[in-house]
């Protein structure tokens, strides 16, 4: 858990030291959805090895283009692999 995020209404972090049963349950339920994005980074680097290495581009624009393209291609593959998703 990142302690840096403020406790805004739209951002939920686990309770660091849950006092009651309610908070304990809430933390337990959060565990799995919280890991989703961690899995995503693992899949991204495994799928596109270019994400493993330090980038070799000389401008930020190029880095942004490459990173975005990697994300877009990840979504294209996800759409193909998981039937639930149909792009517009």
């Amino acid at each position, binding site marked *: 858990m990142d302690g840096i995020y403020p406790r805004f209404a739209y951002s939920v972090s686990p309770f660091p030291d849950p006092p009651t049963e309610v908070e304990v349950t809430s933390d337990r339920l959060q565990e799995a959805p919280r890991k*989703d994005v961690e899995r995503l980074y693992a899949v991204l680097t495994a799928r596109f090895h270019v994400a493993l290495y*330090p980038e*070799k581009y000389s401008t930020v624009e190029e880095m942004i*283009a490459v990173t975005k393209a990697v994300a877009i291609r990840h979504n294209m593959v996800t759409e193909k692999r998981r039937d639930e998703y149909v792009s517009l």
Partner: protein
Amino acid sequence: MDDPFNLSAVAMLKDTEDLQTASAVAAHLQALRHWQKRARGSRVHRRPRYVRSVPGRRPNKRRKFRSGLRATLRDYFVLNGDPPVYNEGDFERRFRMPRSVFLRVYNAVKVRPFFAQRINATGRLQAHPLQKVVAAFRVIAYGEAPDRTDEYVRLSASTFAMSVRELMRFIVDEFGSSYLRPHTTEELQRVLTHNAERGMPGCMGSLECSHWQWRNCPKAFAGMYQNRHGKRSVVMETVCDENLWIWHFFVGCPGSHNDLNVMHVSPLYFFRYERRMAAPYIFLHC
């Protein structure tokens, strides 16, 4: 190539091998000759920008582009009616995507100015778009050096760099609006329902920032892009759901930003701040 899934060599090479190509090359050369005649006839003598074949200039390597194209067709597509050497599983493992996705990108990009096959001044056909696309995708899939793929695809390192750059820009321009966009109402509802089943009602996804290291960071930016581990990097902020579909992707912040700074300049925060979202949805932080 009318049918995008027609993988026969004839269809793939229709634009390189038939009479149409021969006439295109002839017309191109004719135009060049005409232009030269006009230039010679006119009294304007311009100094040529590029020096032609003179002693001291490094000659082009005889790469034989066609052999690279033939190798690609033989291994992954169809050459002379033979089935490809490698099957669908191999294709997907090596290019890190199914064949249909590859063909979709390829068919969209092959008519673009950089990728379309060109005829050079001597009337030779230059590299085929398939080679450039395969080359760029291998660099992305393996993170490998251009010299390595040169042996297989037969393109020079500079062509590689250009095709990677052009292809990435093309993908962002062409597919960005449909594959990297905010939720529609139905999609949001689906994600919310799914997360409610997992015990987190109202949860839109999970959010995290990650750093991507930048090796070629200029000295002038070294301080700005230095992250807390002392390495230069660029931050990317991502929101995804359980199926690992990326719903929000924000990249480009200097590495010296922490997660909170990134959130404050991210479109996600602004959308939220301007109340463009209908209801308070929840992001979970890792």
